[in-house]
């Protein structure tokens, strides 16, 4: 393996771990806000790691630029969407889950 393939393998592996962690958190966490916490953060990091990993094995410049473009769009769009979801949930009086008040979900 060439050096760039090793870098790609490591980055893709890391991205997979991060993405899977986020997915698992989305399933296992007790209420909406904690799920948001895992999903929102890992989405951004995971996609960035995987797309960055792919840049190293791409031969031509145009595709590399497009990959970075996708990463940029996702970096802007995903947190915006997450923010908007949180705001909507908060405005609609969705109570956060606590140990004292486990019935956080309406």
């Amino acid at each position: 393996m060439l050096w760039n393939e090793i870098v790609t393998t490591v980055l893709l592996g890391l991205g997979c771990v991060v993405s899977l962690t986020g997915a698992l958190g989305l399933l296992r966490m007790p209420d909406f806000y904690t799920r948001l916490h895992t999903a929102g953060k890992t989405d951004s990091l995971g996609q960035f790691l995987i797309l960055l990993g792919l840049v190293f094995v791409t031969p031509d410049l145009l595709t590399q630029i497009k990959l970075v473009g996708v990463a940029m769009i996702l970096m802007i769009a995903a947190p915006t969407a997450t923010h908007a979801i949180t705001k909507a949930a908060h405005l609609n009086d969705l109570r956060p889950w606590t140990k004292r008040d486990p019935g956080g979900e309406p």
Partner: protein
Amino acid sequence: MNAVVLIDTLLLILVTITAVAIIEVRNLYASVMLTSVYSLLMALVWVNMHSMDVAFTEAAVGGGISTILLIGTLVHTAREERPIKARVHWKALLVTAVTGAALIYGTFDMPRFGDPHAPIHHFRVPEMMAQTVGFANGTKGKQAPPEGFDAREYRSFNGRVADIPDDPTDTAWRETSVLAQDGIIVPKVIGHAAHAPVHDDAGHHPHPADDFNGHVPNSVTSLLAAYRGYDTMFETTVIFTAGISLIMLLRRPRRQGEAQVGAPMVDQAVLRVVTKMSVPFILLFGLYVITHGELGPGGGFQGGVVIACGFILYALIFGRAALYRVLPPPVIDVLTGLGVLLYSGTGAACLLLGGQFLDYSMLNRLSPGDGESLGMTLVEYGVGITVSMVMLNIFNQLAEEQPT
């Protein structure tokens, strides 16, 4: 087992689960959301099967426009399905089981997935793939093939070179060509573009027997705009008609002085800024998709839907009144018709220049390939304008306050 089959198998399981959930979820809002998920998954299946243009369309149409339209309907109807007593409708289950069993019995005669001997891979399309345009990087038009190119080699899927005569007028072999080894009848065809003259003596561009009349790198676009040009034109007309029907069904005359009501989301600073940043980019990207359609995946349908999505995003955040300031409804109506006119006008121009209807090579006598490229671009723009404006119109009608 190759990668395509492996991923296909796993993805289709997800698709089926989603489909069952869509039908069985009581909450219509959740059902609509799952429809969007379903479209994205289905688009993944298309990408995996190397059907880039279909994936493009499915993502833009199914994931984007359909979901927005369904939500627009939910605004005027109910969010919840009425609870029914029996969860399982036994009669329907019986009907579907019988029909499904009959269809599955039929699948046992299908060629296996990806079989190179399947009839579909031996009729007409190999001929198209062997046409000789686009050899030099970035150039279009009919050109001489490079040294050593043999159009027949491509067609011999298993390394067997068929015995095709060099004379393109000799077609007697077509009836008799049988690959006796496998007992498979292979209609062998000839790469006539390598042989046929670009012009005859009178300056006409002759149509060989099986000319696909489309020689751009993306064979899907050349099939769409040239080989099936009439069909695509009337498909555009179908969309145009759908737009007209929506206007007739839902538009009501606006009384004088009636205020535009709406619920813009401009109070959300993050959304407002991101939308202002991204809408010009989305529109530009839509134009890129339309223009790039003959070189890569994309085209009028996809680009038009992307442009419509850009305007819809603007309307979602800044309100429909703001959209009407940018694109007043009369302008949308006129542009809807203009797209169809551009398509059929391109065809009529070919007719006036001495060719057949939609024979794009007439648009540039000196270089028919460039003429085809120009014609396809014009046609794609026609489709794109109509599709984007009809989608926008449908959105406007659905979003409008309905009298109850």
